[in-house]
């Protein structure tokens, strides 16, 4: 059974520019899918359409939630910025979204969750008192604390230094393996995509569509500098030298 089916025939911006055309893919429950595309390919727009933040499109985004067909699943969203409420403490930020999901199984206390991501003792601090990496941890925790069936991630680690980003990628894999949500992870880094995902979808430049679908059959957890990841990365680029620019040779798209 698929959790998510995306079939976007057309998405145009207000200025008439066509961002997405005939973009079709699906994702299984618990699957980690990375979406790689050149800058401006409409990756963020795609996540906004899936999450319903943007509804202006031709086509459909269909969910087959574990609870009932066509019921929108619980969604966690990690944006490019942490987007924590700066006037609420870490604990209040987490409690705010947790409280909204009252039907959730709340077997773990907030303190346990904080300890899980190495933020014990930070519950009473405001986001402005945390480092960039710690803020991302809180945002990551906020996304997982609602027990999401679908987790959308929009280049969440892009502005972090390499060691912090690596730590967070490992943390993400731990949390994902423990809770098994379906993940759509948008990135422009092929290495990052290969180090995290079960499957990588490559998008063309605007109007965006899926041009290549690559399964990644490597064991989790992976690090970005793993030899296997590096081999896969090099092999892909050898086969499709212009892949990161949004084109494959010869053109193929298997979904």
């Amino acid at each position, binding site marked *: 059974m698929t959790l998510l089916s995306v079939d976007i025939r057309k998405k145009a911006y207000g200025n008439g520019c066509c961002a997405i055309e005939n973009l079709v893919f699906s994702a299984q429950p618990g699957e980690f899918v990375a979406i790689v595309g050149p800058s401006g390919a409409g990756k963020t727009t795609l996540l906004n359409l899936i999450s319903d933040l943007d509804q202006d499109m031709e086509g459909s985004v269909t969910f087959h939630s574990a609870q009932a067909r066509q019921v929108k699943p619980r969604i966690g969203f990690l944006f490019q910025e942490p987007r924590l*409420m700066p006037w609420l403490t870490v604990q209040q930020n987490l409690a705010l979204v947790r409280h*909204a*999901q009252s039907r959730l199984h709340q077997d773990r206390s907030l303190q346990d969750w904080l300890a899980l991501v190495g933020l014990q003792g930070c519950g009473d601090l405001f986001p402005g008192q945390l480092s960039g990496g710690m803020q991302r941890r809180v945002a990551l925790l906020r996304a997982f604390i609602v027990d999401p069936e679908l987790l959308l991630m929009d280049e969440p680690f892009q502005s972090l230094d390499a060691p912090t980003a690596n730590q967070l990628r490992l943390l993400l894999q731990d949390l994902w393996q423990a809770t098994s949500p379906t993940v759509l992870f948008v990135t422009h880094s092929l290495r990052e995509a290969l180090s995290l995902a079960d499957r990588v979808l490559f998008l063309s430049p605007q109007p965006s569509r899926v041009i290549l679908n690559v399964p990644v059959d490597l064991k989790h957890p992976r690090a970005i500098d793993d030899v296997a990841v590096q081999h896969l990365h090099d092999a892909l680029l050898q086969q499709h030298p212009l892949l990161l620019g949004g084109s494959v040779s010869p053109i193929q798209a298997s979904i």
Partner: protein
Amino acid sequence: MVRFLFASMQSALNIGARFAKGRWARILPLLLLVCIWQVTASILESKTLPLPSSVLLVLWQELYTGDLLFHLGMTLRRVAISFAAAMLLGVAIGMLMGWSKTWDRLLDTFLILALNIPALVTIILCYIWFGLSETAAVIAVTLNKIPMVAISLREGARAVDKNLLQVAKIYRLSRRETFFKVYLPQLTPYLFGSARNGLAIIWKIVLVVELLGRSNGVGFQISSYFHFFDMTGILAYTLAFALVIFSIEALIFRPLEAHMNRWRT
């Protein structure tokens, strides 16, 4: 010698910096003002500028007889009612205009008109339409303040971070939670700005309203003293009211603002 001078200057600057951070930085200018007043009044010996001590004496006498508390109470009552009404309506209108472009366009002309009508005209019109009553006085003051609050809050509502509202939508926060936990905290600086500014403007307008058409209140008393050309009485009531406003600022606004803004530190 040069080194000594440099060291002296530096220590003087340090003392100055420490002083500026302390409570004295607020009190000393006031004391200085009183000293200048005392000296000028002593030199001039004019009826138009009584000595501070004479003003304090009248203040004490008025307090003792109960007149001061009565008139101050009446004025504060009008200030409180008008302030609450103006803030409530102004905040609602401002938020509505910041949230909806249609409402913004519909109300903008009225807002500009209301903002530019002199307070005196509104007061006279209200007295003519509603009679020389308490209701007319409060309506006149409220109408004068609403546009200022609305404009400030409209700017605040326009500046609300849409990204945070997206977070509220994604995590399915209720409307109540979205309003109180996500939307309203972003308007706090605008609310405080309006409240502070509002209080300052409202009490000035209340005094005019009382002067024109009420038989009690600080404005009425100042008007009475004016007829007898009694500067000491005028200054005594002005001082009393200034003290009340200082107290409101020190006991309510500052602590509340510090509490609301503790996340910024």
